């Protein structure tokens, strides 16, 4: 990878956005094409800033399917030592003042002996490994800090204008530029969705007693509260509150903040300490009306955003990557124009239904659980109780959480394209 302020003026695929989804796509295309496809990645953030832990205190849940993808790209072996496997998943539904928080639903975190359904990994660890792998790939050019400001579609390709004046010709432009994707708007694609009255708080805490790999999701009346295990006696909290309240909580001093966290976590973890920066992020659900336009494909948050309830945002983005990489590579192996409409339509057919389904399923769950009414509470208890007693249904949910249901791209099954 060339790490500089300008790159070549032509490439096969231009990726706007060099975060997880954009970098993973570049690696997948480079690897499966044996370095023949030339990929240029453009990102606003200077690489040294992107790598720094202090700039992103968040962690992500990676499903088994996402792990397969990273494994096939040779990235997993670089991060495996930092990844915490889920050994158990506990779901509970109780009021804050409840003395005991009985577990409503308990999953064994493993798909099968020795294969966890999901892992927790800190964002900066994953980002650093992806950048390092991209640097090793000669067919990938990385231009940062830089952005794609505009583009025009020609009969044979796309011409993208960068902020500092360079124009890059490509066969395909991939918009991996996040939830407020400017390229989505420039491509004339509208997005539908709504914001939630809640915001998410993320924080990393040190704990006294080991978490044992247990992931916990409490459905509290204010919104879901997740305690996700990290390596080294730490947990990542993903904590939903009404927006104003979320800002207040994050602004508390460390002692007060830990007191609020402890109220929700219970006493299971012993003494708590602050182990990283904390922040809030807005919660919204959005789905692009189309995932493709002439010469343009949307991936990741540019295409869809889900309620982070089940930590599925990154996993769904990586499903886009695996599907788009497979469609592009198979088309290139037939000599087809990889940015042509029939190729892009195949990607859209594959991904759009799945994304809509995930988005609205998470939304329904959030609505069902973020509510304190007694009848809803008993319906939830009854429903989850049923799931808990039906092993087949539980296996389905664990496989769903692992991202292993549906028509999977090969990379997610741990196969080469």
């Amino acid at each position, binding site marked *: 990878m060339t790490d500089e302020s300008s790159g070549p003026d032509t490439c096969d695929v231009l990726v706007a956005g060099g975060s997880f989804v954009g970098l993973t796509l570049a690696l997948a295309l480079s690897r499966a094409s044996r370095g023949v496809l030339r990929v240029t990645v453009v990102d606003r953030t200077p690489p040294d800033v992107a790598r720094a832990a202090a700039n992103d205190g968040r962690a992500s849940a990676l499903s088994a399917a996402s792990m397969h993808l990273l494994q096939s790209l040779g990235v997993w072996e670089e991060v495996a030592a930092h990844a915490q496997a889920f050994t158990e998943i506990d779901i509970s539904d109780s009021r804050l003042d409840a003395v005991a928080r009985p577990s409503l639903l308990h999953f064994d975190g493993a798909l099968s002996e020795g294969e966890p359904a999901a892992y927790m990994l800190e964002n900066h660890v994953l980002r650093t490994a992806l950048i390092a792998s991209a640097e090793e790939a000669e067919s990938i050019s990385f231009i940062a800090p830089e952005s794609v400001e505009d583009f025009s579609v020609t009969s044979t390709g796309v011409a993208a204008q960068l902020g500092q004046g360079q124009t890059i010709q490509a066969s395909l432009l991939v918009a991996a530029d996040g939830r407020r994707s400017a390229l989505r708007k420039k491509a004339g694609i509208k997005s539908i969705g709504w914001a939630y009255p809640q915001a998410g708080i993320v924080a990393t805490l040190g704990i006294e007693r080991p978490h044992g790999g247990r992931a916990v999701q409490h459905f509290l009346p204010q919104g879901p509260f997740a305690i996700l295990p990290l390596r080294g006696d730490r947990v990542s909290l993903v904590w939903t509150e009404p927006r104003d309240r979320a800002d207040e909580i994050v602004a508390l001093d460390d002692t007060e903040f830990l007191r609020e966290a402890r109220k929700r976590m219970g006493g299971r973890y012993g003494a708590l300490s602050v182990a990283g920066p904390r922040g809030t992020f807005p919660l919204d659900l959005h789905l692009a009306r189309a995932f493709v336009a002439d010469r343009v494909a949307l991936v990741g948050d540019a295409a869809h955003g889900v309620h982070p309830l089940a930590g599925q945002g990154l996993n769904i983005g990586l499903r886009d990557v695996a599907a788009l990489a497979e469609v592009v590579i198979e088309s290139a192996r037939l*000599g087809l124009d990889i940015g042509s409409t029939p190729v892009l339509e195949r990607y859209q057919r594959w991904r759009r239904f799945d994304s809509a389904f995930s988005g609205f399923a998470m939304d329904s769950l959030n609505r069902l659980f973020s509510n304190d009414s007694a009848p809803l509470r008993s319906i939830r208890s009854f429903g989850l109780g049923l799931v808990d007693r039906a092993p087949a249904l539980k296996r389905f949910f664990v496989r769903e959480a692992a991202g292993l249901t549906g028509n999977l791209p090969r990379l997610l099954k741990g196969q080469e394209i």
Partner: protein
Amino acid sequence: MTDPLQNELPPSSERTLDQNEVARFAAIADEWWDPNGKFRPLHALNPARLTFVRDQICTHFDLDSRDLKPFEGLKIIDIGCGGGLLCEPLSRLGAAVTGIDPAEDSINAARAHAEAQGLKIGYRADRVENLVADGERFDAVLALEVVEHVPDVPAFLGVAADLVRPGGLMLLSTINRTLKSYALAIVGAEFILRWLPVGTHRWDRFVTPAELSDACSQADLQEVSRKGLVFDPLEGSWRLSSDTDVNYLMSASRPG
């Protein structure tokens, strides 16, 4: 029923080409590369038929089909290339490609499109006989969706086979002459779905796999493989199948 291949044979010089057919394709030449235009069905068919072509050539010449440029070093000709829907992919896969078509307008459209794509393809508005006379030889010769438009299939194959070098491969595709093909390819595709202009095909010119295989043998070509093409309405795309009742492809090799 009389054998349609022997029916109403024109004079021998016109057995390999039908001027009415040439004129009909010339009239719509500017639409070759419009994915929503009159040639949409060919665009839809392209991935599946290219899969057959690629896999047959890779198997025959022992090449890696997962490579993005497996055809480097191969000389390939597409007979009846139209706007270049097959020539461009073959060129991207690394082959030195020649495309010939009797319709001058199609060749002009093909040439303009390839230049814009930065692809070097040798296009000629010409007929097969002239290339044979020039002594041209190719590693692979393609004539896809062609034989159903020529008046005399054995005569056409006899000439086209001369373009295949010893040890080379011929690739053909056409439409079978069955009741099902009449229902699907003519009534369905032309009259009901309007995928193709009415009059695109004449059922009596359709060729059965056995007839095509025999015509290959007469031209000193040996059938290697045949596959059907079926439309999957759920996926909205074509795929290869063992069902050769309607559209099918065939590969045949010339003994080395």
